[in-house]
């Protein structure tokens, strides 16, 4: 049974921040509602005030300015997956958004909600991490910026204070010589919570080698994690499309994740599967610039 709640629909950011200040930890933001309404139904929402952000149009955008991509917190997953800007300058995020839920969920759910929700299984999070995104956080006191890798403190937990709101994510636009991608393992092709997911960023140098790599895994640790040792392995790869070599580099991921057993899968399987997930996604991406020999 859904408990009785006070409900406010904020008209703009200013009003949202005012309501956040007024109700503090009594309030819960709702953006697309794809997580909050499920939790309400399950009796898992302790707050008794809902502040609805879905009418705050100023937070719904994707734009590129001076080499920086800005994504508004209220941009939906459907917005992200269809965005030409992201397809060109932040492909991993568009791909990740396109794998969230099904069309109905993507039409409602927002990237700000996915980040603020801080689920270790959130699909957009590894993509934002490898894109080196920064989270803009607003409150009545002003705005602060937190690198996304520092944003999460545990499953469902983040640095957000009660009166704060995620307003946008921004990251350097990727360009030529930069490859990003995303892979997801779930129970089926759509409408599935990730059993594991992965995003990667590779910068390809003049000699076709990977000179910089960022790899992040979701659903295999209390928060989404960077896999630094695996990144190093990828930077040592010869610039030749070799399945065995790529798979060998991905193997390191086994040591960098700390999953748990749950209803979706066991920890042991997750450790094994993330290796394959990374290897196939990376192979597909590198196939566009490397050739078999």
């Amino acid at each position, binding site marked *: *049974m859904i408990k009785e709640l006070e409900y406010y629909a904020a008209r703009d950011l200013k009003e949202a921040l005012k309501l956040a200040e007024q109700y503090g930890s009594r309030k819960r933001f709702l953006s697309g509602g794809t997580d909050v309404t499920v939790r309400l139904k399950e009796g898992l929402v302790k707050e008794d005030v809902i502040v609805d952000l879905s009418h705050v149009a100023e937070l719904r955008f994707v734009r590129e300015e001076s080499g920086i991509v800005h994504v508004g917190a209220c941009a939906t997953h459907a917005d992200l997956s269809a965005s030409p800007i992201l397809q060109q300058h932040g492909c991993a995020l568009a791909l990740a958004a396109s794998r969230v839920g*099904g069309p109905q969920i993507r039409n409602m759910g927002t990237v700000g909600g996915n980040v603020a929700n801080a689920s270790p299984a959130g699909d957009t999070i590894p993509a934002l991490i490898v894109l080196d995104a920064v989270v803009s956080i607003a409150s009545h006191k002003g705005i602060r910026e937190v690198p996304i890798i520092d944003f999460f403190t545990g499953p469902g937990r983040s640095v957000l204070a009660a009166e704060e709101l995620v307003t946008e994510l921004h990251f350097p636009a990727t360009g030529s010589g930069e490859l990003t991608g995303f892979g997801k*393992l779930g*129970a*089926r*092709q*759509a*409408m*599935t*919570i990730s*059993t594991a997911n992965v995003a990667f960023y590779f910068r390809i140098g003049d000699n076709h080698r990977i000179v910089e790599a960022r790899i992040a895994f979701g659903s295999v640790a209390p928060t989404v994690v960077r896999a630094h040792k695996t990144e190093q392995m990828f930077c040592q790869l010869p610039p030749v499309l070799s*399945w065995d070599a790529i798979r060998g580099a991905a193997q390191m991921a086994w040591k960098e994740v700390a999953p748990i057993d749950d*209803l*979706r*899968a*066991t920890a*042991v*399987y997750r450790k*094994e*599967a993330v*290796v*394959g*997930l990374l*290897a*196939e996604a990376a*192979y597909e991406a590198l196939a566009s610039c490397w050739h078999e020999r």
Partner: protein
Amino acid sequence: MDDIHFEQIARVDAQGKACGTTAYMSDLSFPGMLYAWFVRSKYPHALVKSVDISKAMALDGVVTVLTAADVTGFNGFGIVNPDMPVICGDKVRYMGDTVALVAATTERIAEQAAALVEVEYEVLPVVDDPIEALKPDAPKVHDKGNVCLHTLITKGDVEQGLREADVVIEHEYRTPRQAHTALETESGVAVPEADGSLSMYAGSQYAFRDQLQLARILGINPRMIRVYSNPVGGGFGGKDELTIQGGIALLAMKTGKPVKVVLSREESLVSGWKRHPFIVRTRTGFKSDGTMLANDVTCYEDKGAYSSLGGPILNLALEHASSLYRVPNTRHEGWAVFTNNGICGAFRGFGVPQVLFALESNMDEAAEKLGLDPVTIRRKNVLYQGEVSPIGHTLRTGVSMDLVLDAVEKSDLWQHREEYKKTDKPWLRRGVALSLAPQGAGLGVGIPDYGGAYIDLDRDGNFTLRIGLVEYGQGTHTGFTQMAAGLLHVDPSRVRIVAGQTEGSVDAGPATASRSMYTASNAIAAAFHDLGVKVAGALDAKYHTGADAVCEAKDGGMTTPAGFRTYEELAQEFSQESPLRGEGYFVWPTADREIPGAAGLPHWIYSFAAQAALVEVNTLTGETHLLKVATALDTGRTVNLQQVEGQIDGGVAQGEGFALFEDTLIAKGQVRTKNLSTYIIPTVQDVPEHEYIILENPEGTSALGVRGIGEVVMVPVIPAVALAIHDATGVWVRQLPATPERVYRLLHPDVQ
């Protein structure tokens, strides 16, 4: 028969369903209506020491709270054995058991009141494994013990046959607890009438049986109960047994007000019927040329807490445990065993998918060991009409095992399987396999299997077809309309249907067991014949044209001894006070004797399908995608091709779910997959491409040649998927569903 034309029309119910205007029983509301809440058990197995309703009753808006003492008739229901209490008085046996019922002015108050019902339990140990439950010291779910049914069928000498075999395949197989997940959950409205009678509006698969079960619960004459059960928002067997009807009937009779309930998906998944998980132990013996010599099968059926149709399901599984292959020596043994694992009942396929997964897997393994092709080994063993089945009865009518096998062999998918199996990704493997299945139709021996229909010539010259069989999505009402229109020689738009209600339609048995189209074909043909007799009689009474004259349908009317009359003219003359009515009744042919010790067996008429499946396995993650399925299906005669293809699409999806995704996980009696984010069914992204091969080998005992096809279309695809995973990767899948992790572990047996 062949001169009857079936006009290919869109579904008669398409517009209402597509536009959302169709009112299901759960959409109905009545003035002054109350809302019910079922107070469910807190434990999977416990004694109920006391139930205190005082706090719940005191809540504002609560109209009544009922406990076991308030059941006015017999406190139990069950199609075969009424061992499931409507309200538990002394003991609960699964998490969905009802300990009290609340009726309140709003659903919210009803739910709040339910939380105020105080139940004192004495917790009992849980028994959650059917093999454990058979041990003498296992906790007893019912006083009489945990064996719901034990059946043993033997033919020849199975041990001798296995000794003589060149290869014996011996394995244990396990199958999932599949949920029906009908779009419409268990729901309905019970309405007490001024004369003391009750109207029950609840989607179900057999209104006339619900009527009797409700009469037994309420302790009143069945004719004081009217049941309206059509249309249904999905059944698949999950609405064959009663669900919520008993509870809301008691509340309505007690309060004198209409009482409604619509279960949430979570409550449906915890409390509702499921498919029985089976453990199937097999030893199958073959000669070196692939000839089957013996099959020894032992099935353990996880019954859950109450009987429902678990006995007949076990027996149908045992009937099919050696399929319709030529096996001289068989031993089919089964145990239906009570546990605290929810409740299991009827589900499309009715035990057949469970055993054929085992048998067809053994078949392919034998073929591989013997160096035979999967088609060759099956073709060597399929039975023909006139031969004796593995359980000892002679097959008397329409056996199409060979036809569907030949057809699937000729499918594009099978013929070009090496092309289909190509992939350029090093981590992907593709495989193709096939399987075939018979599916016994109808209720079997020793159970009257009958059906009636009325065709009314209405005042305006159009027709009303009255028949009990409900539409729960199969498309049968479209088929009934076409069959009636074809016989009457009128456009299908002139026939309307009244179905699934005890008032105004005719008992035609349950909409189960692949029996609707076949039963209806004969009942409608009989009613049509009787309408001709009635027309002749009416003309004779007026014009003395002769009572034995024959009237034949032609071009929107009938040729009669008084000349051609359109139906409008006949209606004008004879249907003004009450419609001229053709009544038709049909009794299924059955075997003349029962297989000893196996109630209901054998079946007389079977459906047949063969399916080939193409899967792609990701060897890095174990993910398996079903890419394409070719289905060869014998319809007897196709009435509506779109509906046949629709049944194939849906059956394949449900079979795919069984094979790859679906399982209700229960740990120590507690359901862990309580909604559709954890109970995984295929989405539209997961379902395969289809190749349809429709055969028409007329069923001789149907007036129109038709066979039921609703169940068999989901059966062969299940072993075909498992065997295609083997073809792709070399591993044998012996437990379904083949989830990514399960497949991964098979591929990497070193992973602990």
